[in-house]
């Protein structure tokens, strides 16, 4: 006899495919007697009480307000208070783009990280092919990783294709940043453009952060193409400034504004959304004081700009531990920070 008996949503009316869990009547983990009222569910016709068929410890598998399919499990009754219960059933909301069946098949075949398409809403096979073509067309130079990194990767990744993500954060004075922006009038409208400008230059000093992990190699990009995340009413997009390290402040600021305008006009084309070698995401406007952004495919790091708190804000660098480690990430951040604060 299994130690966790599933309790399923009863079919109460012919009209309902799902019911809403209105209210739990028993605390999580509390013992219940047979016949006890476990929860209230709302069908299209009324609110009903669901009772326990047998006794046990109640282990919730849904939250109040959730929709639970008729016949689906909304809780378990276990013999002991701490018996393991199955993980939540799959089918929870998935973020990110939708992939067609063919696109997904190609992704799996080619081992492409779905995150490469995070700027898109719907991905067709054709989009995956275009991505593969643009990745292979890029000028890259491959160098084998050190033996130490290879063994570390083997130990940590277990053969998975995804990055071994890690995060380093460095606090930066809000006041110094503000003064730096004041002295760079080109970035008055888009202050984080200054960070992008300086990050592009920092990448020249740290080429490994402008590379990605490829089958045991570090694949270095020739160019520095910095993408920045825009998430407004047109959905999440990552427009890219190509050759960001060789653009002037004015050029950089203008291009950011052009890209933002194209975003709002829904005119960002594939060229402007692809080819990124590093990404910046700015959540300072969202009041988030620290976060761990996801690294884009065929990149090894992403810089997050967090909201200020107590006079300073964090620069969060999420990186692929297969290429980098905390120390190199810290060095990158310190150089970037000093580039910014030196302008203040």
């Amino acid at each position: 006899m299994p130690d966790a008996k599933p309790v399923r949503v009863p079919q109460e009316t012919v009209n309902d495919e799902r019911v809403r869990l209105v209210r739990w009547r028993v605390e999580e983990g509390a013992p219940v007697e047979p016949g006890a009222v476990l929860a209230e569910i709302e069908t299209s016709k009324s609110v009903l009480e669901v009772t326990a068929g047998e006794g046990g410890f109640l282990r919730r598998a849904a939250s109040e307000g959730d929709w639970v399919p008729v016949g689906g499990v909304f809780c378990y009754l276990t013999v002991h208070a701490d018996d393991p219960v199955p993980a939540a059933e799959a089918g929870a909301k998935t973020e990110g783009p939708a992939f067609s069946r063919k696109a997904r098949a190609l992704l799996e075949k080619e081992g492409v990280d779905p995150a490469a398409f995070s700027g898109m809403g719907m991905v067709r096979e054709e989009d995956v092919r275009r991505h593969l073509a643009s990745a292979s067309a890029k000028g890259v130079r491959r160098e084998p990783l050190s033996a130490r990194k290879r063994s570390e990767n083997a130990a940590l990744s277990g053969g998975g294709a995804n990055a071994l993500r890690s995060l380093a954060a460095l606090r930066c004075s809000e006041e110094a940043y503000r003064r730096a922006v004041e002295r760079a009038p080109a970035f008055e409208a888009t202050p984080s453009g200054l960070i992008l400008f300086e990050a592009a230059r920092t990448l020249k000093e740290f080429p490994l952060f402008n590379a990605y992990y490829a089958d045991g190699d570090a694949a270095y990009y020739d160019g520095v193409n910095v993408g920045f995340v825009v998430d407004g009413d047109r959905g999440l997009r990552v427009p890219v400034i190509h050759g960001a390290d060789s653009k002037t402040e004015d050029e950089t600021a203008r291009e950011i504004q052009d890209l933002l305008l194209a975003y709002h006009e829904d005119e960002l084309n594939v060229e402007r959304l692809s080819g990124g070698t590093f990404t910046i995401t700015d959540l300072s406007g969202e009041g988030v004081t620290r976060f761990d952004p996801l690294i884009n495919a065929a990149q090894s790091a992403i810089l997050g700009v967090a909201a200020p708190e107590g006079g300073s804000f964090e620069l969060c660098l999420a990186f692929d531990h297969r290429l980098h480690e905390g120390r190199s990430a810290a060095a990158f951040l310190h150089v970037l920070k000093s580039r910014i604060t030196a302008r203040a």
Partner: protein
Amino acid sequence: MDDRSEDRLRAALLIRAVETRLLSLYAEGRLNGTVHTCIGQEYSGIAVAEHLRPEDRVVSNHRCHGHFIARTGDAEGLIAELMGRPQGVCGGRGGSQHLHKDGFYSNGVQGGIAPVATGMAYELFRRGQDGIVVVFLGDGTLGEGVVYESFNLASKWSLPVLFVLENNRVAQSTPQRQTLAGGIDARAAAFGIATGSGVTWKPEALITAAGEAVARVRAGKGPFFLRIDTDRLNAHSKGDDDRPAAEVAKLRERDPLHAIRAAEPELYDRLEEEARLRVEKAVEAAEKVPEGGEDFEDADGWRGVSWSAAPGGEKARAVVRINQALADALKADERVSLFGEDLEDPYGGAFKATKGLSSAYPGRVRNTPISEAAIVGMANGAALAGGRPVVELMFGDFMALAADQWINHASKFGYMYGDSVAAPFVLRTPMGGRRGYGPTHSQSLEKHFLGLPGTRVLALNARFDPREFYKRVFASLDRPTLVLENKLLYGRPLDAPLPAGFSLEISDEAFPTIRLSPDAGADLTLFCWGDALDEAERAAARLFEEEEIFVEIICSTALYPFNAAPLAESVSRSGRLLTFEEGLSFSSLSAEAAAALAERGVLKQFSRLASARRPIPSSKVLEVRSLPDAAAIVARAKELLDA
């Protein structure tokens, strides 16, 4: 003869002079359309009108001239109306059978006026307003079932309505003995309605009987049935009287005017001449103004729209929001009342849309008998009397039972009464199948009710909050409004996730068009309305997932008047239109939408998906095969793209 009798005689002679002149005008080709005269029956209207007060309402039928003049005295407005002149009481739109002035309303379709009058009485009574309602019916109308629905409701709800049955023993050409079984008074008595009677050839006694009837109704004793035996001396209309001349001649002998003329020739001649002169003057005045001064607007409703992101769905089922919307309306507006079948607690409606409302608003949410024609007819009447009734028909299929009220009454009042009144009410009903309810409880019949000027037809879906939707309905309620709900929609959550990758927008129309767009250019536009949106969404998700076809869905909430512009805009981008509906597509909104696009040169590739051309079977397997679903959309979309 005393003064009052003289006044009655003057009125009777005026009515007769007007009708006699109308007949001659017709013969001279100066009058368009038909004329039903009440020559011989004049004292019927006069006897009743004498006891009425300004706040009372009179509802009449095709033979209404006498009632109208007796009630309003406006012979000039009547003559101008029949001569089609702008200064007619309805601007020449109504003509002989469709008169309105103050509290007087007539309509030419038999029987349907009975529930309209009952509805007026309901609204006056419900809101404690003074006034009673009189409705004139002919004995030929005793063949109409809706009369008995009205008797039943008026009696059960003890409404202040006086049913006057003018018994002239002939219906057009058919003598009563061929068509009437049983007794006349017994019909009303069977519903517990008190009855009385009089005859027009004894005017004094008739007036007394009418006075007692009116007084009884006015005293709050419920409806009353007054039978007035009378004689129609002329044809039903013109030249269609096949009664033997001797029979009619006998009737002429007991014509009350005939008797008065014999008794008081001098007075009679004087008043008759007075009436003749007045009528002649009225005819001359009418002819001074040309007919047809009205400007016709014939806009097709085409209007470009702008779009905004749709708000997130409420965390509730559609039926809960409908219920809240109805509660909102009851709370906000005393004029709002609900009636229909099985609405009251504890049942709360077959689909629970009215649950709790009869308890929260006692007396304002009422169960009716199974009388769809009377339910909608009463909504018409209550609305004309200043109410904002909301009625429910349990199944959309039952709209057929109320079709006369929708088509010949609701949609006509506004225009035919010279835009001086309207019947602002809400008719809610669920359409749709997939429940195994079979041929007569699963249909989507909206196409039969679309396109009637003066009405509005709207359809709910799960992507626009029903509470907000109904809020807009009530805020703009200026005409009969049919709101299509759907059996499956009731239980749908409003916060279901969108198909992955799609974005949802709504237009800036009062009843917005819903647009579900893929993130890249659409290959195909899928048009639907109502709960068909659910299958459409599933299909759009599958078409992307399985076929890499990008579909844009356009879902209208305003079916009539219909704005095809948002659809045209989408199709002009995608190049292809697939329409999807659960009803039969022959002459449906799908066909109409496609026609509108074709007229503008937008339509290139087009296909229709609709119910199979047969009634909807009850067997699950057969029903699934009869009604198009997401799989059918996927298949048809592929064909369209491969073409």
